[in-house]
């Protein structure tokens, strides 16, 4: 089942939404595992299922969505077998989430120290006022915020400070896995770099693994150890970051990398032709075939399976 070198393992995870015209599969048979301290990236376009995946790991899919099958293991605990209360305790303490819109994730009418205090109390750590003050100060200093921030309301903080506050909450119970869902998409590049530096540093101090969800291939190239590419709910390629940047195996990965504007040459902008498919009317065969520049006859009829192609690398493409 789970060995010492795996902290989180996702096996055949499937998330479905019931729709009048049939079942829509937002996450389709996804498997991967994380080593302790590993930085794993999940990239793809909007609607590729990457955020749904993050929520499914935490079992936070709301109706009409449901987890249809598969299992998530945190060390040797199978999350589907936990009671709702045990799962609730495991969130934050075992797997914590840094949300996308930090501005909408903090309670606007509660001072930051009390929001951190609530999180601790809810997980059985009811601290006396003095001890809480010390704990909050330590957490804030870990994310590079001054101690005064504890007595502030979210609207008194800048976007970067709010995102750091969210990181402080995420690490308050020393989780083993941190899931960061586009943590810097609303921030400017200079602030983004500072926040990612903070996230990387606290993750290393904690010895936690991290899943970074996003669409910026530049950010992935500079931050993660291994990258997974999602397309139409499937993990179509996984490889160590240096390999995937230097020699992507899936044509979609290559196009995703090329669509990032360069600062070196003005060769013009390249997009990916066509639109991401609607999940309820996926094309037959490989879901990417209508947009693929290398499409062959087999791709139109035969859905490619995920194959191991190198140590730590998998790909779902007939041509790779």
């Amino acid at each position, binding site marked *: 089942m789970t060995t010492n070198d795996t902290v989180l393992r996702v096996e055949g995870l499937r998330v479905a939404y019931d729709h009048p015209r049939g079942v829509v599969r937002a996450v389709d048979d996804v498997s991967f595992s994380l080593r302790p301290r590993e930085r794993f990236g999940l990239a793809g*376009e*909007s609607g590729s299922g990457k955020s749904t995946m993050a929520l499914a790991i935490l079992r936070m899919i709301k109706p009409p969505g449901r987890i249809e099958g598969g299992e998530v293991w945190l060390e040797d605990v199978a999350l589907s077998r936990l009671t709702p209360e045990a799962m609730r305790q495991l969130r934050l303490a075992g797997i914590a989430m840094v949300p996308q819109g930090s501005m909408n994730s903090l309670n606007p009418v509660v001072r930051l120290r009390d929001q951190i205090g609530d999180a601790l109390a809810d997980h059985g750590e009811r601290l006396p006022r003095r001890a809480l003050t010390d704990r909050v100060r330590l957490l804030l200093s870990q994310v590079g915020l001054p101690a005064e921030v504890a007595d502030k309301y979210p609207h008194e903080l800048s*976007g970067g400070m709010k995102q750091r506050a969210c990181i402080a909450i995420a690490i308050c119970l020393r989780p083993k896995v941190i899931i960061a869902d586009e943590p810097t998409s609303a921030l*400017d*590049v*200079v*602030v*983004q*770099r*500072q926040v990612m*530096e903070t996230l990387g540093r606290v993750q290393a101090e904690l010895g936690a693994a991290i899943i970074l969800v996003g*669409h*910026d*291939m*530049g*950010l992935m*190239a*500079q*931050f993660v150890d291994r990258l997974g590419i999602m397309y139409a709910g499937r993990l179509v390629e996984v490889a160590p*970051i*240096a390999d995937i*940047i*230097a020699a992507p195996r899936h044509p979609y990965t290559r*196009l*995703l*990398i090329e*669509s*990032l*504007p*360069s*600062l070196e040459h*003005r060769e*013009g*902008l*390249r*997009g*990916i032709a066509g*639109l*991401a498919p609607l999940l309820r009317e996926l094309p037959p065969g490989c879901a990417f075939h209508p947009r693929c520049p290398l499409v062959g006859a087999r791709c139109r009829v035969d859905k490619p399976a995920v194959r191991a192609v190198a140590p730590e690398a998998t790909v779902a493409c007939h041509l790779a």
Partner: protein
Amino acid sequence: MTALIELRAAGKSFTGGTLGRERKVALEPFSFAIDPARPGITAVVGESGSGKTTLARLLLGLIRPNVGEVLFKGRAVHRLNAAGRRDFRRSVQAIFQDPYEVYNPFYRVDHVLTTPVRKFALAGSAAEGRARIEAALEAVGLQPSEILGRYPHQLSGGQRQRIMVARALLLRPKLIVADEPVSMVDASLRATILGSLRKLHEEHGISILYITHDLATAYQVADRILVLYRAAVAEAGDVEPVVKTPQHPYTQLLIGSIPKVSTVRDWAVEQKQADRTVTAAGCTFADRCPSAMARCLTATPPLYQTAPNRAVACFLYETAPTLAQGDVGRVLVSV
């Protein structure tokens, strides 16, 4: 030659707080002009709060400057008569950030296209109007049959934003002010939308002011660039030298902060500067600047013209002549 639209030492500040005693400068006064005879794509780059949207709103006549003037064909925008205002509304078009909010969800998307045709009497007959709309949609890479008759929620964000580009094209404006037109669409679609803006410029000679926080797309799309930092122009000039050899320490920081798709990890961390006391009169970047000198803490640098097509607001370049009248337009001239 009268400029199409001109900022003449125009700036904007807002008052707030109790009894309006707090004054916040949104844009320090500066000058620049858009010459219809030499159309180009100018990028305005800066972080949130740098004044880029204030600049857009001044140029669109949505707000009035506190100091200086915004002129349309030589006349102040907010004092135009009915005919002048009509000309202004047609010549200067806007594309906004959010491709969701600009649509009324109860109307078909046709509404945003038929309204300008009717208001500006662009077509002699209904059939001609329809033909013009279809041509505009095709020019931005959309199939009219897949777009017309639909409601906004039936289209993707990328399609909706391209309809806004088509609407702007319909009016054959002289200038399009595009305020973060692609920040809410996927990376793969950005290229298509920016490509259609570039095409409008090349095929129809429309000037474009591309406002963005994304320096990399600015580099790909624009000919000239204006870097704003905390309400003032930090650096301006041709896009190639500004991006390749940035002169202002802020531009250098901005470019160094962009994560690159490379196997080389060179995403360096900003060096934290020792605490400095910068007076209100000092350079706005002095508290973070790795090259700050004593005078930076007490005085604001003017714009120095470091090359024929380049200006930098930094004392490191004080041997260069100061830019006459702070007129940024002088260095933003296409060749």
